[in-house]
């Protein structure tokens, strides 16, 4: 992946990449940003600083005020990187379609995760390369959509890179390469954590409909974010799937909503613990928490028969090793790798990978919400579909808080 710059120039000389009329070689890549919040805007800046000749030309957001904020944010940036005109700015529920239709080569998908499956599908159908923020779905129905779209992208020669940036971080890449080469022997067990304080929330104002408030305050509604185990902890779970080289066979978990109980926090949990069983009975304990004033811990640990590692720069045991130097900036590197792969005509496709990591997190949530053990096939084939019937501003009651033993497993 990292060697893609070299690959890119080799490919250029070989005059490959003929499938990509609009984006091969060093041609300008025109980018549309769908979801103009802080992360989407950050990804747009990352993309334009990741390689030459990448220009953000279109913006889309559900909310006009969020769109306006982003336009303002980019107004003073160089025209060769941000050339955004009125006719390429869209708001409303169909803004993503309009961005896809306005002559872009690549889209950055950074809305709340609920919309990611339909955006990925639409972008692939429209023949666009994709940077998709994590997670890529909130329920099994969405995961399946992403898997199908990802396969179609492969057929069409389109790139999909996901916002699980550790996959592009030098400390992780070098460490996990060594582990896969046997540095800690046969893998036995792991632990992964994202335990931090609470995140931002959006207060409801009298003029907001249920739908508007929920989408603006999206972290706290499972249909929008997937709950924090999916929305945030997917980063660590993805590392576990990566280092072990498989998705889990089953999940057995618990969780609850103990401290963060106010109305503004919707109905999601504030803590989870899941035991994931992987092939060969490798067991991973996963913990995530968003409660203020607790001891924090964020990271991934893997144990083998000959040593252990934090997956990101340190190996102890028989083949002790430490990463030297500072490491790269992974949120820029993921765009560098994406763009180089497009230009080389060898598009990266991380669709299946992020779909599997997302489903791993979802099956953990399903287990914790219901109190039942959930097997991979059960999760993959589950009929659970959290998307409201109609996407329109209006009434939408906050769902009940899931109660293990009472909430059914579907």
């Amino acid at each position: 992946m990292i060697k893609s710059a070299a690959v890119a120039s080799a490919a250029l000389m070989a005059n490959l990449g003929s499938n990509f009329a609009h984006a091969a070689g060093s041609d300008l890549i025109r980018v549309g940003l769908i979801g103009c919040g802080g992360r989407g805007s950050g990804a747009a800046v990352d993309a334009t600083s990741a390689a030459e000749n990448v220009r953000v030309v279109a913006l889309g957001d559900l909310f006009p005020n969020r769109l306006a904020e982003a336009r303002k944010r980019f107004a003073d940036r160089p025209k060769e990187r941000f050339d955004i005109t009125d006719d390429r700015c869209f708001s409303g529920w169909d803004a993503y379609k309009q961005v896809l239709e306005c002559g872009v080569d690549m889209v950055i998908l950074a809305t709340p995760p609920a919309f990611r499956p339909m955006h990925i599908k639409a972008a692939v159908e429209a023949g666009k390369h994709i940077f998709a923020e994590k997670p890529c779905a909130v329920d099994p129905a969405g995961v399946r959509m992403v898997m199908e779209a990802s396969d179609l992208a492969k057929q069409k020669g389109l790139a999909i890179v996901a916002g699980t940036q550790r996959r592009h971080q030098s400390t992780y890449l070098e460490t996990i390469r060594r582990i896969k080469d046997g540095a800690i022997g046969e893998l036995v067990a792991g632990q992964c954590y994202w335990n931090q304080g609470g995140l931002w929330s959006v207060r409801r104002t009298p003029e907001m409909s249920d739908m508007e408030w929920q989408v603006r305050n999206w972290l706290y509604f499972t249909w929008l974010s997937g709950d924090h185990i999916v929305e945030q902890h997917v980063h660590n779970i993805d590392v576990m799937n990566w280092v072990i080289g498989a998705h889990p066979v089953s999940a057995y978990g618990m969780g609850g909503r103990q401290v963060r109980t106010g109305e503004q926090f919707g109905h999601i949990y504030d803590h989870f613990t899941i035991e994931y069983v992987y092939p060969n009975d490798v067991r991973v304990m996963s913990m995530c928490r968003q409660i203020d004033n607790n001891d924090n811990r964020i990271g991934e640990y893997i144990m083998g028969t000959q040593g252990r590692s934090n997956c990101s720069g340190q190996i102890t045991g028989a083949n002790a090793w430490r990463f030297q130097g500072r490491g790269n900036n992974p949120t820029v590197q993921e765009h560098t790798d994406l763009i180089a792969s497009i230009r080389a005509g060898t598009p990266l496709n991380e669709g299946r990978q992020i779909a599997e990591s997302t489903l791993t997190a979802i099956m953990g949530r399903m287990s914790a919400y219901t109190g039942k053990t959930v097997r991979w096939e059960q999760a993959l084939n589950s009929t659970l579909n959290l998307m409201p019937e109609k996407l329109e501003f209006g009434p939408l009651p906050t769902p009940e808080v899931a109660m293990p033993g009472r909430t059914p497993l579907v």
Partner: protein
Amino acid sequence: MIRTLSALMMMCLLAFALAGLLPAQEAKVPAGIETNTVKIPGTTVSFEMVRIPGGKIEMPPKEPGGEPVVVEIKPIWVGRTELTFEAYDIFYMQLDLTEDQKAAGVDAESRPSKPYGAPDRGFGHDGYAAISVHSRGAIEFCNWLSKKTGKKYRLLTAAEWAYACRAGGPPVKLDREALSEVAWFADNSDEQPHPVASKKPNAWGLYDMLGNVGEWVIGMDGKPMLAGGSWRDRAAQVHCGALVPYSIEWQFTDPQEPKSTWWLSDGPHVGFRIARED
């Protein structure tokens, strides 16, 4: 018998103290230096301050080749340690506000945003300097504490800071061995900050002026600067004249646009120390 035991224990304690084995916090403030302990109203959290005497300090020229600037320093109260997470937690997590006050948006503009991830980076929390703090957070903390206490808290100026750091001594750079007695820096830090006051204090009883975490001060031009070097720096960068401006590198991996004005995603070496005027 009991007396004997006590005497024996006293002797042991003294021996430990001489060997530097006692917790450094127990070390006495030098004679003639006033201290006081401040409890943050409505909380159980307190911190110690030291009143440093007035004097003069020569600061480097404002422009290369210019004249050194002599700055007069008035007596001022200085935090005995870098500000710790216990105190900063109350401020940034709004632990002093009721749910109703939070709902009403009390202080909404003057309190830090909710950090993404763990500002303490897993190095340690209670007893450790608050880190990952942008200058805005350091300044607003002082304003918040001033409001709470009715006293004027602020960051030190660069001149006051250098003066407090030297504690009446000349401007010297310590060699690695001497520095190791008073500071956590690259050679001894094991790549992380350490609990405050776990090295020896300076002549005025101030801990960790050198190393551990860099400390926000107000520079000669009014802009925030980071003073004293940190656990990441080599010995040559850890001295009373060490002063560096904000670097975008300290937010290298902040994935948001705009980047946070409260938190430094890559500032595990950035903290602050508070001062009080009266």
